């Protein structure tokens, strides 16, 4: 009659070395692919096993030195025992470090998975339940005792010593594998705890997002209300020239051709994860759903912005419809009224014409008749480098939805400057004695000019040139009232109002001849 032994098979680190995989990324099963729980277990096992390989090699070398056919001293045995204990302690330390590293990585990957699933598959169940079967494999074992042979035990015949050394090595081997499996179990426990929190938070988060995006929800209102699409800026030199409805329309056209790649998705998750600065995505103290939605939107916005091809920028998106050319012309008139008007007030057209070099944003390929609309919109005359002929009978044209459009009140900077300069020279006590005398004003300007124009020597500097410029400014401001295009004032103030209060009629000529 056959006799069967039910003795448990002894664990062996050495045997496992050839049986388990050594994956480059042991946690890649968390990336959402359909890895079976058995394979996931093998990958975790392989990772912990890998870090103990160095310890195993050191232990093998130790047993090599105690070869059965050589002499052995008491000191050699003592040293071998001490070294072995050190190696076993190293095995525990290495495993602890790897376990902690994997637990951190698990948390980070699950958060990334959570964020990615929110974007692409919010309707699916949390993909973490399939790892629940791993729990059966996470068994904690007691560490076996590794004997400590003394000199008399090993100082025996070569055959006996060989057997005893083999037993000692086998105990060590079992110890290493037990350490390895216990740490695998701890990693799995950590993974399952995270997965449970993930699953519980997923349900709650989805409920919150459903509430936000449903009719009447905060997100729903934000995207449907055109007010939120106007992007007004506090900057007086910046104006959004698109209406909310137009912006919505463009957004829909952009989204119709927008697709997220896997890499984009991973980048979005990384950006959100980094911006949370340690705040968890799931769990009891997780981030607020509205904040998470905001972070997701900002990270996704970067991807949309980089995905929208420059060649199919805003203008081509806007250029649908017969009224496009006219609308564009109107936009450019607005631009002219804004930036151009401010610049003209500051520098005057004629001597220093301002190259308008801002607002580089979208490049669109548009119909060739656009050029006419643009030139009309600019009112002619003004050099506007943003429009240029294109050899392919298209026109490369750049304007951005946010462009310069200063309110009228801010167009008076130049006037204010002249006013301030004038007041400083003539309206305080310094000028009381030169009342009504043109040469006296000039004397006053020259006398005080050293405080304002420190680069000006009597002979070498540019003081006289500056006074000539100021003289010219004052003359032009007065004489040029009629030259200012009325459309620039937008009917808000008259030309007289612009200039009266800046200089008085009698102030318009400053004698540039230096009385000194």
């Amino acid at each position: 009659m056959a006799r069967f032994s039910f003795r448990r098979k002894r664990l062996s680190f050495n045997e496992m070395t050839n049986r388990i995989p050594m994956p480059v990324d042991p946690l890649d099963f968390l990336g959402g692919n359909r890895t079976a729980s058995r394979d996931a277990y093998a990958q975790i096992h392989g990772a912990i096993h890998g870090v103990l390989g160095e310890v195993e090699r050191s232990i093998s070398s130790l047993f090599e030195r105690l070869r059965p056919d050589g002499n052995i001293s008491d000191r050699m045995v003592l040293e071998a025992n001490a070294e072995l204990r050190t190696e076993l302690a190293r095995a525990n330390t290495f495993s602890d470090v790897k376990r902690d590293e994997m637990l951190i990585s698990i948390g980070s990957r699950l958060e990334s998975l959570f964020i990615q699933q929110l974007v692409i598959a919010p309707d699916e169940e949390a993909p973490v339940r399939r790892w629940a079967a791993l729990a059966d494999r996470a068994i904690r074992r007691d560490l076996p005792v590794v004997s400590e042979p003394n000199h008399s035990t090993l100082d025996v015949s070569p055959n006996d010593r060989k057997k005893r050394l083999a037993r000692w090595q086998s105990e060590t081997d079992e110890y290493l594998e037990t350490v390895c499996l216990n740490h695998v179990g701890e990693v799995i426990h950590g993974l399952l705890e995270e997965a449970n929190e993930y699953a519980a938070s997923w349900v709650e988060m989805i409920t919150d997002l459903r509430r936000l995006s449903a009719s009447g929800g905060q997100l729903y209102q934000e995207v449907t209300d055109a007010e939120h699409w106007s992007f007004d800026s506090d900057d007086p030199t910046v104006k959004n020239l698109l209406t909310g409805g137009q912006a919505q329309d463009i957004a829909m056209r952009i989204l119709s051709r927008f697709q997220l790649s896997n890499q984009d998705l991973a980048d979005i998750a990384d950006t959100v994860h980094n911006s949370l600065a340690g705040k968890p995505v799931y769990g009891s103290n997780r981030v607020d759903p509205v904040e998470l939605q905001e972070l997701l939107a900002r990270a996704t916005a970067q991807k949309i912005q980089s995905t929208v091809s420059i060649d199919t920028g805003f203008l081509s998106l806007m250029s649908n419809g017969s009224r496009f050319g006219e609308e564009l012309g109107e936009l450019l008139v607005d631009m002219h009224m804004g930036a151009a008007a401010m610049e003209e007030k500051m520098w005057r057209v004629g001597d220093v014409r301002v190259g308008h070099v801002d607002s580089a944003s979208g490049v669109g390929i548009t119909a060739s008749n656009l050029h006419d609309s643009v030139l009309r919109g600019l009112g002619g005359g003004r050099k506007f480098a943003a429009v240029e002929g294109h050899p392919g009978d298209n026109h490369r044209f750049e304007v951005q939805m946010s462009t310069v459009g200063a309110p009228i009140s801010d167009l008076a900077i130049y006037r204010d400057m002249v006013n301030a300069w004038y007041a400083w020279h003539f309206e305080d006590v310094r000028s009381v004695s030169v009342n009504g005398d043109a040469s006296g004003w000039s004397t006053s300007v020259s006398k005080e000019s050293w405080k304002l124009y420190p680069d000006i020597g009597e002979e070498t500097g540019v003081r006289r040139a500056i006074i000539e410029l100021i003289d010219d400014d004052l003359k032009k401001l007065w004489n040029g009232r009629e030259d200012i295009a009325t459309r620039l004032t937008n009917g808000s103030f008259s030309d007289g109002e612009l200039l009266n209060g800046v200089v008085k009629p009698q102030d318009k000529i400053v004698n540039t001849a230096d009385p000194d």
Partner: protein
Amino acid sequence: MVSQSIRDAEALTHASSKAANRIASPSVVIGLGSTSCQIVRRLDEVSSAWTFSDRKSLGFLYMDTREATRGEISRSSRFIPLTLPHFSNLRDMRPWITECVPELKNLSLSREGALGTLANAGVAGRFNYGNLRGHIDATIEQVCPYYEGVTYLRVHVIAFLGGGTVGALPVLLAALAEARGTSYNFSVVLHLVLPQRGMSRDPETTYPLQLRNAYSTLQFLRAASGIEVGKGEYTGKDSYNVTVYPDKIINAPGPHFDVALLHRSPKDSLPVQRVHVARILEGLVADAWGTGQDWWARYHETMREANNNMDARFGSISSREVGLLDGFFVQTAKQYLQNQWRTQL
């Protein structure tokens, strides 16, 4: 908070992408005055996360009449204090002084409360001219090592037009003109920060003085650009002479700058102004990257199309850094998320 954290995350992402170089042409960034030094310092801090090759293509130089500024910048930075020795140690009526002030005793009267007149900085700039030239040469050598064969760079000068330290601008431009005569070829970008009423300590008194200073400096820049007006008796030349300590005449031939940009803060707040201008500056310094790349392409296009060299000299910048386009794309992303959640949930 959200936008700040997302920006930090972007910075991290950018910092980690080693492949992309931001800077094609090395730059020296010079802050003139307290406001400008704060802006430059901000850029200095932001750029610390850039790659090594980008970072070594950037040099910073700080100049201020206020000695305390030295304590506000990093210790390794080059700082040139625009200070003068005690009057008793200076001989009066020397040309480098009298070009600025009729007599040295007037100098002590040249500050009007917190807002100094320009003369003080002008004299201090002349006194420290040797120091200034030395630092400019050393910084250029640092960002453009001659043995690497790079001989083109950009110099960005940031100055608050309403302040007093801007009075040293003519001296700085003269020093740059002299440096340009060496084996290096560089273009100068002037960043002129405009005074704003809401940002003055006392809008009723100091703001008009700031406007007056702004007007004076702008007139100097116009004159130094060689604009000819009226009879053209004195205007029309873009070179000028400056006498510096100890009575050395420096001839500064034009053109003194390639483009001057006017900056306004979107809000009447110093931190906002600092961040806003520094961000635009960051874009322009990073000429191989994003907005800077676009901007420089557009700038050269403008210069090509300009009727004369003057046409494109002055410009204004208020491009996408101001955030309107960012706002649009964030809103579009919200629309995307809404579509996803609305259809699938």
